[in-house]
């Protein structure tokens, strides 16, 4: 990925997420609240920061994008309306866009199935982990 391509992807991430990173005052409340913090290599505030700096590649390649629970705690508690979850979602969407990058394939689904697995989980997992 060239630097230019990376910049373009960042711009796209900002557009589809509707996030304006310049509103962020770097207080870290999002990361202070995130329930997946320890599972993530890059944390919510870093997503905001790095995308605004044009460094999306590392984020796309990191497993962090699959650790976000979309629990909206960061969105809820951000004092500046930055919406970190939305930008994580956008990075994930950009990562999963090309063919063959699905995190979850139909074959793998049976691994997670048990008698009680609710449809909601399947729907959500498909939406979050594949194109």
């Amino acid at each position, binding site marked *: 990925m060239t630097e230019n391509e990376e910049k373009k992807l960042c711009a796209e991430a900002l*557009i*589809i*997420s*509707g996030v304006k990173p310049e509103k962020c005052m770097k207080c870290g409340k999002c990361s202070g609240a995130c*329930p*997946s913090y320890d*599972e993530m290599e890059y944390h919510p505030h870093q997503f905001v920061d790095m995308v605004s700096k044009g460094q999306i590649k590392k984020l796309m390649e990191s497993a962090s994008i*699959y*650790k976000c*629970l*979309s*629990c*909206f*705690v960061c*969105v*809820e508690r951000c004092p500046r309306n930055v919406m970190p*979850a*939305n930008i994580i*979602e*956008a990075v994930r*969407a950009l990562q999963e866009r090309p063919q063959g990058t699905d*995190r*979850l394939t139909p074959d793998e689904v049976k691994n*997670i199935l048990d008698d*009680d*697995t*609710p*449809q*909601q*989980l*399947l*729907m*959500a*997992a*498909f*939406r*979050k*982990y594949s194109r």
Partner: protein
Amino acid sequence: MEYDYYPGCTLKNKASHLDICARKAAEKLGAAMTEIPEWQCCGGVYPMAGNETAQKLPAVRALNEAKSRGRDLLCVCSACYHVLKSVNYDMANNATVITKANTYLENDPWYKGETRVLHYLEMLRDDIGFEKVKKCVEKPLTGKKIASYYGCLLLRPSKIMKFDNPENPSVMESLIKALGGEPVIDPFRNECCGGYVSAEDTELTEKKVRDIVESVKAHGGEMIVTACPLCMYNLKKYGDLPVKYFTELICEAFGIEVLEDD
């Protein structure tokens, strides 16, 4: 009181009890729930990205359907509620989504977020009132220490959901009180259970559930009540406390018997 009802896939299947109990309790409370015709799956998660209008269309259809009948749209499943309410917010505020969705669906007149989406718990609190709920109780849950677990989807983002105080909610506690039980306030009631990540990282979910369940125990809770099928799944799978849907709890207190395979 008449409502259009959006059950959602999970309630038609694995979480059928959540649905059945909701209907039976509503009957007793004098609220009519009419399932809207030909509803489609809401998608399970709200499409957050700005370029995902197509994924919002099933929700828009349901919302517009309710509008055409002039009724409020009732949900019981947390996820459906979250998706429908979020999409409804877009349909009232986001010009791009409004235009795209209406054009695609050929809505005439345009749907612009007119429908009121409400959760069964909101119906109990705002439309029916817990006083009335109290009157329907036949077998009060006296002495039961019940911790309510809200999860994420009902509460957040509060700007859109406007469901309850997102950090200190009270609707389920009020319900438990009305049913004669003793609400236990667990500070993790609005923390995530691990959600759909259980599909790929069971460890994370396990940890989250453990935190929640341990906290409930530490605060003296003996049982957890929830509104979300996915929370139920995770809490049950990784936790060791009894978990019930809030509608099951209502039926229990109302003395309505619901069979296991009902």
